[in-house]
């Protein structure tokens, strides 16, 4: 879904890009990783000028690597810093708090951002996430170069984002290294999970009133990857609210709390005190695990840490 697709066939930039890509393929054939699933995103090198189609279907043209980037996506911010493009970022949204260098940058509104504060920073690239999709047109009308990067649905999509952002920031090599490392670690996790037999049943809690993640959410896809069962399987929406009785009857072996500590104060103790919850397997065995929602739900390079943590907490004997 985020792989760049060729846009307008009559665009001279596109022809230039295709030519460059072909050339790059010939020159650096040994560097390519062949398991990229969609389009040209697997190509580690690229030359400017280039045109890349964003997730809104718009071909965005770059005459040179952008040096003044605004990121409205916490996931994209983490990717940019991980691939060595952090120095090209001049400002981020208010949620982009990782790594520390990103946190120190000037902050802009995440929801309904205004174009003016962005214009004042003279960016040559504005990366917007799904939350700002409605603002893209206004920003473009103000003369800004906007690249819409909707949140991917799974880790494979994050890895595609890494390569994509690498290409359009001129940091393809750094991106390729990050992407390769992520792929290697995903494969390792998958192999271990596959060898561990049937995975435990998990309840992933977003808030104490029963909101959870179904298999067609990002976190749900990670649960599938480690072969865990999901109490919210079969729910209609991505973030369903489950009745307490459904959770009690399902009797999950592990409960993951993304509403612990500063995120809502939940813990093994508060879960145990809920009516009817004390005899759930996860509560009795103490497998109620507090996690950092930013690491788990933000589509950046740290999802691999989340995945490895998931493996470790679901299969303690591995």
């Amino acid at each position: 879904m985020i792989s760049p697709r060729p846009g307008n066939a009559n665009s001279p930039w596109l022809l230039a890009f295709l030519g460059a890509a072909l050339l790059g393929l010939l020159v650096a054939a040994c560097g390519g990783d062949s398991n990229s699933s969609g389009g040209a995103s697997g190509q580690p090198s690229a030359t400017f000028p280039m045109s890349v189609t964003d997730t809104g279907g718009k071909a965005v043209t770059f005459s040179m690597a952008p040096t003044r980037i605004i990121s409205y996506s916490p996931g994209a911010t983490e990717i940019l810093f991980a691939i060595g493009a952090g120095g090209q970022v001049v400002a981020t949204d208010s949620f982009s708090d990782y790594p520390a260098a990103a946190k120190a940058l000037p902050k802009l509104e995440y929801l309904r951002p205004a174009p003016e504060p962005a214009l004042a920073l003279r960016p040559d690239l504005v990366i917007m996430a799904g939350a700002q999709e409605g603002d893209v047109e206004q920003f473009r009308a103000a003369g800004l170069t906007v690249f819409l990067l909707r949140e991917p649905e799974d880790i494979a999509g994050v890895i595609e984002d890494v390569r994509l952002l690498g290409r359009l920031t001129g940091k393809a090599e750094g991106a390729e290294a990050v992407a390769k490392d992520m792929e290697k670690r995903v494969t390792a996790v998958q192999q271990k999970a596959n060898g561990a037999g049937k995975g435990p049943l998990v309840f992933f809690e977003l808030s104490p009133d029963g909101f959870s993640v179904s298999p067609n959410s990002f976190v749900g896809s990670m649960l599938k990857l480690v072969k865990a069962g999901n109490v919210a399987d079969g729910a209609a929406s991505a973030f369903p609210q489950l009745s307490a009785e459904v959770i009690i009857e399902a009797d999950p072996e592990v409960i993951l709390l993304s509403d612990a500590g500063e995120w809502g104060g939940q813990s093994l103790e508060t879960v145990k005190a809920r009516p009817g919850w004390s005899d759930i397997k996860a509560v009795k065995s103490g497998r109620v695990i507090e996690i950092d929602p930013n690491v788990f739900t933000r589509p950046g390079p740290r999802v691999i840490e989340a995945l490895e943590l998931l493996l470790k907490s679901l299969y303690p004997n591995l």
Partner: protein
Amino acid sequence: MAHATGERTKRTEGAGFIRLPASSGRSAAWPPLLLGGLVLLAATVVLATSIGPIAIGPGETVRIILSHLQAPGIDIDAGSAHDRIIWDVRLPRVLTAVVVGAALSLAGASYQAVFRNPLADPFLLGVAAGAALGATIVIVSPLPLDYYRFGYVALFAFMGAMAAVFLTYQLARVGWTVPTTAHVLAGVAVSAAAAAATSFLMMMHEDRLFVIFSWLYGDFTSASWSKLTSALPYVAISSLSLLLLGRQLNVLQLSEDEAKTLGVRVELVKAFVVLMASLATAVCVAITGLIGFVGLIVPHICRLMLGADYRHILPMTIVVGSTLLVLADLGARTLLQPQEIPVGIITAAIGAPFFLLLLRRQQRSISQ
């Protein structure tokens, strides 16, 4: 009383309000109707407790409940998943719907009587906006979200609701009298101010939006015995007080001067009714969030059934309101299982068409 209802009809027609059916001839039917309603409510409670995403037969449901009530000779698998689901999860939830449905409906009828306005509902005087502000303050603070007890969220929602009602009263008060129109307008102003503060907090804490909205929608998912028993004394006191004031509310339907000549201390009755109805509403909002439409439509349903006599309407609102909300919550937890639907969506879906129907009846009766 015939004199009173005659006056009422004349006045409301002049004001363009919904004409209330005359009570003569219908009031005789109210004891059997109330009794029938109570039986229906009891049946609904048993039915709703035995239906849910997890299938548990009505026989097992009743046995589990009886065993917890220390009935002799009942042997159940104590502590089993079904036992916990029925006793710890479903029954407190259904009974919370009973209490909240009853309290909101009774409060709605009382507000409509005091303000002589058929569009009055329990959230008229800023209760909803005040509660939302109180809950939002806790949600964006580092305080724990103890949804399953009468904890910080419920406590602050309750205090916010009562503060809004108090502020509304103070703003509208002229000496010891409170002009009705000024009171309603003050409610609008206080609601707007509280909503603005809530919106500002949401803007400053975008990462908590999801939690705030899920509270605002209102639901019974976190119902518990401890929350229910915390709320019950307030609801019981305020409801009993309101039930005893049916005659005074009837007299209030006259002009206030006439009411005074009939020996009713108008300002005192109004202030007391508003206080009691607000107390009941505030406690309900504190434990379940905002549930709309019940407090607005149930009094009208009861009026259509029984006429305009508040001595009959008030007890009936309790029966009809609790039955309706138990059924709405049953829909909320079963229609899209295993997922919940916010119960406010269901009450609005039932309430809005009903209200349109009511308006059309009124228009027809005016055009005749």
